[in-house]
């Protein structure tokens, strides 16, 4: 009887320890990917089954856990467009249209496999709870669950390099565990300022058979911004931060 009570007590104590470890690991992954506040330059490439490509260049700024914005630098048809995210709120600013319009995390400003939530990614720990952690060879496997219904993917499986504590692969799933897309983290590089992380993220999706999208990170730098930068009124002026 005592053994059974002891076993149950061990389980009760062990579960929070696992959850804590997962949460801690997720926070480490976040910080290894990006400083909490930063500026970065990224290129997105949509690749079609016949090999044709379309490229987009973005300047991104982020502050704290819930503020991120980006500005299109290229191609010419998109230049000047910007997008802002504050928590679950997202807006798109198109210079011709003039006023920022609300968009949703599941829409895609660039087309292809990446959606707005992928491009305006907040810290994983800000959006997901680590429910379970497994050890698989040289990697950890984190099972993440969205904190709220407003997060783009209800469930996420994240494979994390044990030594470098950066993701190697992420599967994005619906509530019913249907696979929406897979992100592959590649080419670990020293991007300066102590940031050593995968510089290429490839993604494919069973919903877009044969298509692939790639995100390349060229430059990332820790930088502090005023809160006023992350407002609708400032969206037409993001270029002034470069």
């Amino acid at each position, binding site marked *: 009887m005592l053994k059974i009570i002891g076993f149950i007590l061990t389980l009760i104590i062990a579960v929070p320890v696992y959850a804590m470890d997962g949460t801690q690991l997720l926070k480490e992954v976040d910080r290894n990917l990006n400083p909490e506040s930063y500026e970065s330059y990224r*290129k997105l490439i949509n690749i079609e089954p016949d090999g044709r490509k379309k490229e987009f*260049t973005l300047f991104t700024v982020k502050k704290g856990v819930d503020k991120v914005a980006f500005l299109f630098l290229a191609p*010419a048809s998109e230049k000047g467009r910007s997008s802002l995210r504050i928590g*679950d709120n997202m807006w798109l600013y198109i210079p011709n*249209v003039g*006023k920022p319009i*609300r968009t949703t995390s599941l829409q895609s400003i660039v087309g292809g496999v990446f959606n707005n939530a992928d491009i305006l990614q907040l810290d994983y720990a800000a959006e997901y709870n680590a429910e379970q952690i497994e050890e698989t060879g040289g990697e950890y496997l984190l099972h993440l669950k969205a904190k709220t219904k407003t997060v*783009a993917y209800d469930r996420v499986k994240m494979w994390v390099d044990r030594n470098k504590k950066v993701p190697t692969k992420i599967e994005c799933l619906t509530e019913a565990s249907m696979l929406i897309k897979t992100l592959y983290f590649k080419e670990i590089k020293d991007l300066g300022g102590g940031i050593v992380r995968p510089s290429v993220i490839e993604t494919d999706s069973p919903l877009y058979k044969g298509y692939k999208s790639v995100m390349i990170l060229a430059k990332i730098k820790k930088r502090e911004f005023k809160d006023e930068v992350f407002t609708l*009124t400032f969206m037409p002026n993001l270029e002034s931060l470069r």
Partner: protein
Amino acid sequence: MPKIKRQTVIAALTFPLFYALSLSSTYAEEYTFDISEIEKKPYHIGGYAELRPVLFGLDRDASLYKLRFYNRDEGATLEEYNAALQLEGSLEKGISRLFVRTNTGYKKSYLGEDQETIVYEGYLSLKPSSSLTIDIGKKTLKWGKGYAWNPAAFVDRPKDPDDPELSLEGFIVASADYIKTFQGPLKTLSFTPVLIPVYEHVNNTFGDVNNLNFAGKLYLLLYDTDIDFIILTGGSKTARYGADFSRNITTNFEIHGEFAVIEDYKKRFIDKSGNISEKEFDAESWLAGIRYLTERETTYILEYYRNGAGFTTDEMRDYFSFINTAYDSYLASGSDALIKKGLNITEGNYGRMNPAREYLYLRISQKEPFDILYFTPSITGLLNIDDKSYSISPEALYTRITNLELRLKATFLAGERLSEYGEKQNDYRIEFRARYYF
């Protein structure tokens, strides 16, 4: 504007399009990200060139056909060839930035050839801090939250619900944006005061001249809701005030609304005998809309618009009846005096976009159906609720080639006699637009 040979203009407008098409089959094998691609230059020059042929199917029994074609026969269809070159440039130094956007339009239609260059925007922007921006010059403000209509956009030219994303000409203003952020339910507050001088050679289309007008917008991001309070006063137009809001209910469902009051609005209308009257009242307009995205990435934009300054169905019927009477009179006597009267009351009045009381707008667009990347078909319906007349516009947008946007759009108009869309001069319109950005 200096006179430029027509061939030169057409060549300048068409070259980038053919250049883009010739490049479309050339692709690099590997993707690269050269740091020189992101280097910031103090200047920027860009824009687009556009070709837009249009075919109109005329409704020869419609009042507005009779009004415009009373003394000519152009057949059952009309062709129109449009080209445009929109240029924009900016120059930055320190806290200041100079921005200019010009639009050169060329049109060949049954009326002959026409070419015009307009400075849409041209202003100096000073940014002493991230909290404050001061702009002086010609600028579009684009206030309001509606997609097809903006009754509270008091300092903007009215946009075309048929193509709401077209850039518009601004007004010469002095404006500032002051932003303040907070922790808590009120996250952002910003205030935009605007001065609009209206004199003989400055903004003389805005309203009565020799007035310095003031407009202001107070924006709040409060409880995750965008809220604006807007005012315009000063003498060129009667005082007007309004408010708007926008909010995401879920990640894929947005609601928005707009409300505007125009004090002492003067409505000029004509009865079926041609007597012109004027009525003065406070015109209240409002708009409510949603934007909804389904799991299959179909986007629905639905808006209801109550135009307080609009004409009732009876007033619209009287106007169309008068035009018909004027046309009959012209046929009988050869005198176009009544037609001229009709043209006069149409200009800026019955002839403005959506002059009636109640409208419904629905746009359904499907992103990349059948896994065809960069292809977006959509359909837009515009219904005059009172007289049940409508327009319906299917369109297909294709953006596979970088910087080249191809759009094919058709519009069909239908309605009973003496209804708004039933009396438009066209039964249908088919338009192709090729736009190359550089």
